[in-house]
């Protein structure tokens, strides 16, 4: 979760501090959304990888601990 918050803050700073090159009278939110996705790509990708691995680690330990009582019985 910490990496989420840190990354989010970095992105927030980037978005809020950058100044657009030009001002348009009508702003199409579609192209903005596209570029925004490019900016958050690393964040969401990294968070996803961490989540998947974290689940695997938890799953590994759960497997070990759930096996123990059975082993003792044997």
């Amino acid at each position, binding site marked *: 979760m910490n990496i989420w918050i840190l990354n989010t803050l970095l992105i927030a700073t980037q978005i809020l501090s950058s100044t657009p090159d030009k001002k348009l009278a009508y*702003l199409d939110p579609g192209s903005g959304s596209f*570029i925004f996705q*490019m900016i958050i790509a690393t964040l969401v990708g990294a968070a996803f990888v961490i989540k998947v691995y974290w689940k695997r680690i938890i799953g590994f330990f759960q497997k070990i601990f759930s096996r123990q009582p059975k082993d003792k019985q044997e």
Partner: protein
Amino acid sequence: MTTHNHLKQAASFRDPNGFIFSREETIYRQVNIAYQGNFDFLIESGLYNQLVKEGLLIPHRETNAPPLDPENSYKILIPEKIEFISYPYEWSFNQLKDAALTTLSIQKKALEFGMSLKDSSGYNIQFHHGRPILIDTLSFEIYPEGKPWVSYRQFCQHFLAPLSLMAYQDIRLGNLLKSFIDGIPLDLTSRMLPFRSRLAPSLLIHIHLHASGQKRYAGEKLDTTQRFNKTSLLGLIDSLETGIKQLKWSVNKTGWSNYYQDEQSYTAEGLAHKQQLVSEFISQVKPGIVWDLGANTGLFSRLASESGAFTLAFDFDPAVVDRNYQEVVSRKETHLLPLLQDLTNPSPAIGWQNRERDSLKDRANADLVMALALIHHLIIGNNVPLESLVGFFQTLSKWLIIEFVPKSDPQVRRLLVAREDIFESYTQDEFERRFQEQFIIHRSEPIRDSSRRLYFMEIRS
């Protein structure tokens, strides 16, 4: 739904890949040559079969029926029939939430098979056999490797924005979907959400920063060399899914709703008698489709749906509609669809030329309408004249089960506490006289232990 012979449905006018049309009561989908590659991939990759198997996509069969636009036609499909087309602004919180999660599940499945959703509009989801399902078979494209999700903004506007506003601010904000047909703009959503919503990572990113990002980068040149890899896309979907799952709306917190308020107006024997009468009337009509207006949590709607009729349970209270929906889900009911509807201001026709989304009246398809413990709310609560009410029911269906609640009833007395009694003609005699002008009253039964009366009527031909 209103359909005219050989009519191309207005709602699909934007899509160059195909369209829906109707011919003699049958709904067809024309797939255009422009979509041939994607359509073949959908079928040949196994994605279509998998989605249909999981109940996520509407099944169809191919037909030799003549196309409506032969020049562009690749294939003609007959999709499985949807009993009633409903819209996101008619769904309760959990209906919209389930529709959102269904859209994301479909997108994840599509990516497994090398495709991606190019359209994630809420209107592409319908409730079919009790569960949300994608009805637009032409929503998929072969996954464009390295490109961001083309319908990310649409998903946020159609689902995340209304759900977050409903959960964080007020359940009634779902009504904004009626004004914004392509979903609630993110800058508006961001301004309306409370500050604490920024503490939820998904909302901070997909609503607040997304809205700022849209403004900052609008009109900027796209860097076509930059790639958006598949892990990022999966991460984006996962993050949206987590965000949606975390949004909750609790009835108790809001003070909405008086469950079974009207049912409390009866003794146990009176309620059983009313149920017995309603069941009796339903079995005489053997309706295919029933509309229960003012259905509350669906006690009487279930008499119809359990008899085999596809039943729409309308109510204006988002809490009772949501509770009813959750019951449908937990009981795995397939014939009952709870929907939000304020009869004093029913869903209008909206969109391009007012033809993209039909009004409630345009979708009238019931064989039987039930109006139980309802008319006092319309006549006394909303000053609707009796003759106007008769006209309203006349447009809805052939058969009518309607309850008359007299002025002496405690619920009516409660309505009259804060308003002047200008309803002199609100009497049983006048009610019968007015309705008899347009309907034949087959049965009129007093409900036991109550001053109320149940009528079974048929429209005069």
